[in-house]
């Protein structure tokens, strides 16, 4: 059954959209990066470690990671209202949880790192692109880290498992409809973040995570290459 299924944009089932990354694009930030996946573009800027304000939120045991996810008003077809929304606050928190396990927060107690993620253009998978960009920016800012994190969304369209859903696929309405599973994992293979929107059974979920693992490996190579060539746009292999 799987071989007969055609994706709206003609990609193979395990094929990601073309990815690109660049490190060091915001000169005033301590670290910055851009991550592009198909039409989705995320920019991340890191400031810190710096003094944590407000003081009552300070943690004397370890540092704090503070992420802000924001979609620029022109990033989607219908203009979205600028500023915080329920959705952006939630994704900010998710991003913090996805990245924090990879950081050595204990090495800067009482301080904070600010990560600002801006989505310039959105075509689904923005939280994954945001996480990928943020991790590169954090490494570029010289933050002590245990490992890198890569993120991708796996999914199920009707009964077929696919990787890296785009907007057209997220709105897929035939059969069982779409299931979106954003996964973030460190390079050593530990999952730091997993969400699930839709329905899927246990075996399929396991397979989806394995598919994400392979895709994350590909993203990691791009992240690594971008960090080693600061200021250069690194593009993934064209298929």
């Amino acid at each position, binding site marked *: 059954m799987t071989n007969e299924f055609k994706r709206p944009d003609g990609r193979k089932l395990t094929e990601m959209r073309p990815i690109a990354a660049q490190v060091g694009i915001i000169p005033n930030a*301590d*670290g910055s990066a851009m991550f592009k996946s198909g039409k989705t573009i995320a920019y991340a800027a890191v400031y*810190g*470690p*710096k*003094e944590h304000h407000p003081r009552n939120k300070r943690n004397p045991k370890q540092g704090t990671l503070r992420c802000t996810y924001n979609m620029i008003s022109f990033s989607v077809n219908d203009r979205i209202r600028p500023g915080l929304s329920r959705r952006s606050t939630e994704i900010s928190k998710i991003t913090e949880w996805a990245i924090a396990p*990879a950081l*050595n927060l204990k090495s*800067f107690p009482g*301080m904070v790192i600010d990560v600002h993620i801006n989505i310039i253009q959105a075509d689904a998978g923005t939280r994954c692109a945001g996480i990928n960009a943020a991790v590169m920016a954090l*490494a*570029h*800012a*010289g*933050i*002590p*880290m*245990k*490992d*890198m994190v890569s993120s991708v969304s796996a999914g199920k369209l009707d009964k077929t498992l696919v990787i890296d859903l785009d907007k057209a696929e997220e709105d897929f309405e035939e059969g069982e409809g779409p299931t979106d599973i954003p996964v973030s994992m*460190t*390079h*050593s293979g530990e999952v730091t973040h997993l969400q699930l929107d839709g329905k899927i059974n246990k075996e399929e979920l396991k397979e989806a995570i394995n598919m994400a693992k392979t895709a994350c490996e590909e993203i990691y190579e791009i*992240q*690594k290459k971008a*960090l*080693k060539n600061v200021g250069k746009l690194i593009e993934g292999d064209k298929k």
Partner: protein
Amino acid sequence: MTERKIVIPGEIIIENTEALPGENTIKKDDKIIAQKYGLAEISDKLIKVIALSGTYIPRRGNTIIGEVENVLFNGWLIDFNGAEKGFLSLTEVPMYVNKDGLEEVLKIGDMVTAKIWNINKRGTDLSIKSRGLGKIDGGIIVKVNSNKVPRIIGKEGSMVNLIKENTGCNLTVGQNGFVHITGESIEKELLAKKTVLFIEKNSMDSGLTESVTKIFTKN
């Protein structure tokens, strides 16, 4: 024999080694793993990662250049571009200061060269008791990336001395990335400033000393 390469966090620098993990690295089952983005220095005995970017991390004994941010009742608060502010106590000033006359010595906005003599949980303590420290009068202050400071100083101060000899300017390099330049004329000061910024921009090049000498022969 040292080998150098850029590494990213979590990257295995070298496997099956007897070498010890140095700065910004850990050892896990005979593998040395980088914990920071930077330049890995690989030798037979020690492997370390030198940071290439990031904010200034204060260390005891560093000389820094900072700005007086606030005058308190028993000292001054100095902003030196670190994560936290430094505190310069009244007792660390080499003269008698009247408790009501702190502003006569240093006022808000003054630049000061100071030494970090202690770092504890409460913050960074500064001192201006040694020679060459104290309030800065005149000259130019250039801000560079604090990770490039070793390049500007050079091996045993070779690069700084090169600039000093060729421009006749006096340079004070703060470990936090501020360089104070004083010279006879503004032209000479600006030449020194240009050189410092050139070193910052081209810090990764090999044969940096030669290209710096070229700047001076051109002028």
